[in-house]
């Protein structure tokens, strides 16, 4: 999976806390796909303390949404589907882009390319 590779360039998933970060974020219906992607790309910029705090924010969000999910299951499902759909769409575009990179035989992106990637994901 090419998209795994690109994400891995930015995220050290060995640490289980970081995995939690990505899982919670990916699952959230509170952020747009673009916001999620930017947070993942910028992950390397965040300090450990910031990462920790962000995980708390996401956990809180998860609890809020879980309550709303119980309260309004149908509405939640619609949102969930939409979130999945836009996230998948984002991933598809990411894959295309990475595909282009692969053609150029480059494996690691430099700073400029990261900037390019960021500007490309403007829904």
């Amino acid at each position, binding site marked *: *999976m090419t*998209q*795994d*590779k690109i*994400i*891995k*360039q*930015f995220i*050290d*998933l*060995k640490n289980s806390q970081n*995995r939690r970060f*990505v*899982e919670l974020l*990916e699952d*959230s*219906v*509170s*952020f*747009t796909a*673009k*916001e999620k992607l*930017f*947070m993942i790309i*910028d992950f*390397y910029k*965040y300090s450990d303390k*910031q990462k920790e*705090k*962000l995980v*708390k*924010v*996401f956990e*809180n*969000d998860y609890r*809020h*949404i879980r309550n*709303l999910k119980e*309260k*309004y299951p149908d*509405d939640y499902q619609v*949102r969930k*589907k*939409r*979130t*999945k*759909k*836009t*996230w*998948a769409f984002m*991933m*598809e575009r990411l894959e295309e882009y990475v595909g282009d990179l692969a053609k150029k035989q480059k494996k*690691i992106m430099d700073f400029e390319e990261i900037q390019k990637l*960021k*500007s490309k994901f*403007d*829904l």
Partner: protein
Amino acid sequence: MRRMTKNEPTIIIPREEVLAVDKVGGENRDRDIDLPVILEKTEERLAELTDPAVWEKEFRENLEKAERDLEFAESSMQARIGTVEVVGELSGAPVTIETITQAQAKIAEVRENLEKIKAMDLKSLSASAAEGIKVFVKENMLSLTPLLLGPIAILTGGSVGLAVRASVELTAGMYALDKVLDKLMESAEEIIPPQYLVALVAGTTNLAEMGASQASAFSGDPISEVGSTPLGSNPTNLYLTVFALISAMKQRAVTEGIVQPGEKLGIKAIKQVLQSLDLKNIKKQGGTAALFALDAMLFQFYVRPQMKKGDFIPFAAWSAINAPIMFEYFRRTTFSKKTQLGNYAERIGENQIEQLKEGFDENQTGASPIFELLETINLYQNTEDKKERKVLMDKLHQAVEVLRSQIEEDGDYRRQLQDSVSSAAMGDLQKFLKMAGVGENVDVLRSINSEQMDKATVEAIQLREDSEFEEGAESLIKLLSSLDSYKQAKTKEQKAKALQKVEDAYYEVEIEMDWDEEFAKKVEQILADEGLSDFKSAFDQLKTGKQELEKVFGKIDNLGIVQNHNLLKFGNNVLAEAHRKTELLSPFVDLMVQVSTFKRAKNKLSGDALFVDIKNRLNNLEKRADLDPDFAKLKQEILAREDFSEIQKLIEVRLDDHILKETLQEGKFKDSAVSLAGYQEVNAELCPQVGRLIEKIHLLRELKKEEKIGQVERNLRAEIKSMLAGFSEKMQGSELLEQELTKALSSPGGEIIPELIQMTSEKRKKIKHVRTIVGGMASIMGLSVLLDKGVTDMAESTKFLGKGAAGFFIMSFFSSIGEYLTTKKFFERGEDKDAIKNIADSNAINVGLAKGAVASSAIRGLFV
């Protein structure tokens, strides 16, 4: 950063999920569906929509859905705030907490609007909407467009369910907005100048658009934001104007007398309508609207892309340039008196000018300002040169000022002018003078010519020489001096105080006149003097005011012994009954307090304790009703009301803990709380006041019997007057209070009280207009939210919309539907300039709103 190794965990986006997502709404995407089937479905839906019950149900469902969406949006906001607090940015754009706070305020605003829509009479709205479907199908193709969404959704592979909901929202919203605008324009014309109305309506429809677009965008749905972006509406507004004109064509032809109502509109008639258009103003205002549209596009296609590249200088420049332009635009077109004078002067027909000239003699003293003004109007109308027109506008302004001061000095002249323009044929001139403030707001009591004042004082002093009239003349002098101080009064407080003195002095004079016939004759003689006409009008006005009040007190004075006895008895009954009802209401009030505490309970423990307490209270309500017939009666009366249905439900389910808890958690008790507060206000506050009023009426009668007139009586009268006015205001403020108070006052003996209240509320009509306007504004905002919601649903319902320019085009159109309807209304009324000005105003406001959108767009993560 480091490179991955083979064994590290990875995030896998399962392909089958992507595929599953693609299948969302799969059944609707079936391309095999036949066109006849689609048409049949649309027809079925149309048939359904002629049933008000269906409307109401869907209305309520939509409102509930919007509320649920807001809950998600709020939760999403919390997560965003948290993120911004930690890392200071979102989607790569820096965000401050202030902008988030503003965004939160917007959500609160939208929530308030939803409450307002909920408070609207959905029943009658539904009935009208159902009726409207039939009319729309027959008359208005454009309004049918939302109904075509179903087929579009199917053909483009979207969701029919959503499309149908969007249709309902859009059609109902459009119909209701149409009606609200009708009412608003009718009422507003009575009390505010039309140029403000245009800006006001344009502002109201746009603000809602902004609020709604932001709220929906916060809920994390990119597609909904596109069509509602204020700037997207600017170019749209222009082609929408053409639609407005086309759909207004028929009504316009009727207004212009080109065709009869019901007659068909032929090509010839259409030509005539087009010829009747005020092309000069349409071009001028249209040009401004187009400039603002270009301004919007400049932002869209240059400033915004630059911002994406991280260059904020163009945005700063764009904002800096736009702010003064907008300010100047509104200053000139809406708030500048001179421009407005010019606009109104232009509309005055030649025959009206001629007719007014005939009404005055050119050699008549003081008539020259009128002729001067008419001459300037004439010149203004016939001048095309821009510079000259500007000079003439100044001249017009001066002429109006001269005329106004003349009129304020000379009552006869004022009356003559008012009479001359009072006929319907002089409507434009009348409007012009009204707008210019000539004669309209002249306070007769303040505009007495100083010479007349001096002359009357001299005559009063001469009268005082005669010892027989000494006292009377003294009071007359007092009246004159109080009129003089009223004229000098500057602040509101000073004026009110001085007016009270004028009224007091007048009453004294009148009492003297009643007392002494000879003195009365002398006063009449003074008033008959032609040179004292201003003074006479002032005297007349005071007399009318007193007569009106006299009617109230005459009614009190003329109560027979039996009636008076009954009134006293009624007073006692009202007090006792109110006291008893307040006591009977207390279990309901306590219950409501506990219910709302339960809803806010922070932890499970207190929640459980409250639940047990509420359960006991519900049981007690039933028990008490069994034992106490009075309580049973009140309970039945209260629970029969629709707004208490949630409490009724609690009582019904009280035996099942699980359902009761669910009902408590999910129920909306706001309506019941509001009504209960209304009941309490009537019984605990207003009814005791009625008791006090009756005591005072009784006291006044006793004083009259002893012929003790003087300060005490005056004070009593003033108190009674203000109490009655207070009741009338309260009753106008709330339907429930009106119903309940009228009910409380309807028992035998008390009939006179509602009559007295009615007599005191002479301002009722004006207050009603103000209420209609305020209510209308709130409804427009609310309905715009509903329409925006419809647009969002529409965008989601089809695959075709929301992608590419075509979707954007159509969505922008629907998000500007408020502007379309307003413009259409103005066209129908033949007010072409206002029709286009509405679009220009709206575009100008949009540019301003766009700046706000940029600020919050950082939070949405969509703009930059």
